[in-house]
């Protein structure tokens, strides 16, 4: 109603636009990306590397060859899952920050199951691990949901804490019970052949986890846009009070959202375990959840947008890897770039809602 306004002694002022067009938002996002690259370039320069060379390598590493693109998509796969997990929760205004723990839980649950499925045929083991990966994350999400609805525990606090609990639980399991016998590293033994995700024909090492990610993206898109269930999820996100007034059970809907969100994050964990590393270990899983939050927001909490943002970040990670090896740019630059992109993106979405006016 009342425009947010800001008077500037320079003789300009900002007025809120009544509506923001799609074109305007696209321009804003592209500008944000461009500015992010500029700022990142100066970081690379500060790190003492040749900027032009580093950026070229970044692009080459991400898109330079078919193999580069495939590797980028491998990197993107878990991020799409955690981004989608963010999207569904945040659409319902439920602040799930526990994707990190849910990723671990998915991998742990599925790994535990394979220990008891030795000798079973692939036709059983493969669907079972996919399902259990989902289940692991879903159980964790469900616990958060129950705490939230039955005991009014703020989900931000419980999810952040769950990240530590699950991390240390895994640390314990990998230091003794699940540790590879005679192994030096804190990691499990290799998982059975039958449980590994097959590679997509001709695109190895890209595994079927990527196809699952695409399927979940489309599924979630349909769910949110075209089903009564998605309608109710959006309703509780926009206005839980009105939703309750119109007969929607906000508590059970919230728990369901956390179950789905946790489950989707769990798929990232089992996907990495059975599709990429083939061992349960920390380094490959750590950070996927947190990056997923960035991707969910970047994708505008829209599943299709998340897919794009996930792929963008996959490219960024793969390119940064190349850049690190060949131009000697520190690894941390890639993480910094992720954060820089998010910051400028968030600024751009706000700025695109205003217009500048000159005072006469």
């Amino acid at each position: 109603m009342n425009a947010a306004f800001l008077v500037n002694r320079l003789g300009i002022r900002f007025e809120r636009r009544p509506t923001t067009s799609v074109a305007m938002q696209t321009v804003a996002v592209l500008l944000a990306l461009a500015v992010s690259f500029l700022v990142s370039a100066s970081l690379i320069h500060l790190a003492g590397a040749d900027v032009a060379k580093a950026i070229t390598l970044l692009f080459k590493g991400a898109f330079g060859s078919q193999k580069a693109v495939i590797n980028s998509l491998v990197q993107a796969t878990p991020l799409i899952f955690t981004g989608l997990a963010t999207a569904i929760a945040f659409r319902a205004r439920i602040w799930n920050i526990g994707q990190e723990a849910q990723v671990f839980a998915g991998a742990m649950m599925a790994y535990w199951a394979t220990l008891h499925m030795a000798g079973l045929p692939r036709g059983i083991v493969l669907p079972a691990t996919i399902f259990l990966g989902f289940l692991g994350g879903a159980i964790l999400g469900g616990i958060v949901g129950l705490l939230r609805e039955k005991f009014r525990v703020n989900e931000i606090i419980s999810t952040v804490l769950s990240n530590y609990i699950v991390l240390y639980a895994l640390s314990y399991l990998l230091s003794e019970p699940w540790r590879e016998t005679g192994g030096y590293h804190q990691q499990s033994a290799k998982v059975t052949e039958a449980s590994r995700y097959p590679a997509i024909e001709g695109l190895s090492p890209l595994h079927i986890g990527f196809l699952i990610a695409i399927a979940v993206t489309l599924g979630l898109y349909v769910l949110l846009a075209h089903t009564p269930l998605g309608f109710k999820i959006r309703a509780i996100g926009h206005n839980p009070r009105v939703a309750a007034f119109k007969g929607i059970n906000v508590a059970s809907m919230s728990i369901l959202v956390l179950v789905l969100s946790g489950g989707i994050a769990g798929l990232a964990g089992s996907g990495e375990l059975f599709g990429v590393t083939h061992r349960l270990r920390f380094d490959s899983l750590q950070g996927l959840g947190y990056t997923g939050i960035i991707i969910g927001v970047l994708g505008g909490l829209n599943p299709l947008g998340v897919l794009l943002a996930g792929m963008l970040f996959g490219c960024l990670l793969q390119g940064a890897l190349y850049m690190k090896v060949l131009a000697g740019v520190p690894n941390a630059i890639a993480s910094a770039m992720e954060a820089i992109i998010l910051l400028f993106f968030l600024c751009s979405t706000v700025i695109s809602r205003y217009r500048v006016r000159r005072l006469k």
Partner: protein
Amino acid sequence: MTQVLRVEELTKRFATVTANDRVSFDLEAGEIHCLLGQNGAGKTTLCECLYGFYLPDSGSIFLDGREVTIRSPSDAIRLGIGMVHQHFVLVPPMTVLENIVVGTEDLAPIPNMGIAEKRIRALCEAYDLDIDLEARIWQLSVGEQQWVEILKALYTGARILILDEPTAVLTPQESEKLFQIFRRMAAKGLSVVLISHKLNEVMESDRVTVLRQGRVIGTVRPQDVTKLDLSRMMVGREVDLRIQKSTLGAGALALEVRDLCVLNDKGQRALNGFSLTVHGREIVGIAGVAGNGQKELFEALIGVRSIESGEVRVAGKDLTNARPKDVADHGVGYIPDDRFGAGLIADFSIAENLILGRQDDRRFNKGFLFRRHAVNELAASSMRDFEIVAPSDKTITKTLSGGNIQKVILARELSQSTVCLLANQPTRGLDVGVIEYVHRQLLAKREQGLAILMASEELEEIFKLSDRIVTLFKGEIMGILSGEEASVEKVGLMMGGMSAAMASEVAS
């Protein structure tokens, strides 16, 4: 009289909408000047231009004959223009004095409260405002809080006071008191600009400028025109201010409330042993200032507020503490007072808001997926039947005008209610044309045999529609009067807490 303010050809556009189209008007010293118009006519935009919230696209503003540019509210305050908004900007746990000083002073590290207090006391005396400066805001009635806002403006040296629908939240007696204050202010040479769409109070001002669709239709003196003239100017067509209500015999018992006790959000008793019956073909009006338990009553009835004790029956079926879905399934619809807080989802499209609550109905889905066709059909027929004006059913609801927003709620709730319709302030903030429309819809539903329980602060509305009038004060029924027994004076006194017997005595 001397002219203090003149606006010439002021134009203000928002994207494609022209909110003010070459608006001109003038204000004299010691005048109460009313801006009258429907919602969206441009009254508020005009005032916000005067107060520096918006910068006009073209046109000029003259103050004491000198052209000025008002770039911000602080400019406006410096020029002696004060504004009181519909929603008060006060800090509840702080005292009246603190609110006035903190909200207005260019704060010195330690404000001099002693001097401030003296000045404020002088103002109170000058305008005969009886208010305890040490009282905390939350202890005050809404009417008194409004005085604090007025004092704030006067304290900053306002010579021109702009008020946006000041009587929207007041009882008839409080409104009258407010107008007495305006009279005293005017007598001392201050000028008052009032935004209003209530014809009664408009008639009490010195001059009226009528706006329609951003243009000035004319400026008139109330003694030269009738209410009907004004409403015609405002709406642009003939308006039937009198609605013929047929006499119907009451039908079967539809809603039965016995000894209801309900708590408010602070955990205090909001309803204390409330009992009432509503029959089919009957409208029962609840008169009372908002905040006397209406909201809690309706929320308890639809199942979103727990009932401490007592009983609710709809068509004989016990629905005490039933789930909202069950209540709705038993044919109860609810039009809440707070459209975006309780009625619909601002960011949903019109179509989405129309099926809200019925999304699981088999008519609208085939298990997992929505039946687009059925949803679109419902949207199309609702928009046609209820004259909802919008580019399409995909339009986001919050971009609609207040009247159209209310029609979306009406369309949904009227089609959902088959036994009983509950309505809390169904016409609050709407303009004459839409109010007339809502009234006709409610009366049509009454004819169809529905039981209607409606709460309203507008006594005119209560009297026009109700078969019986219940007066609610602090969670208790002061009396139930039939349409013939009730008079505005009697009900007004009961709204202030007087018993029915006392009120009859005083009134006669």
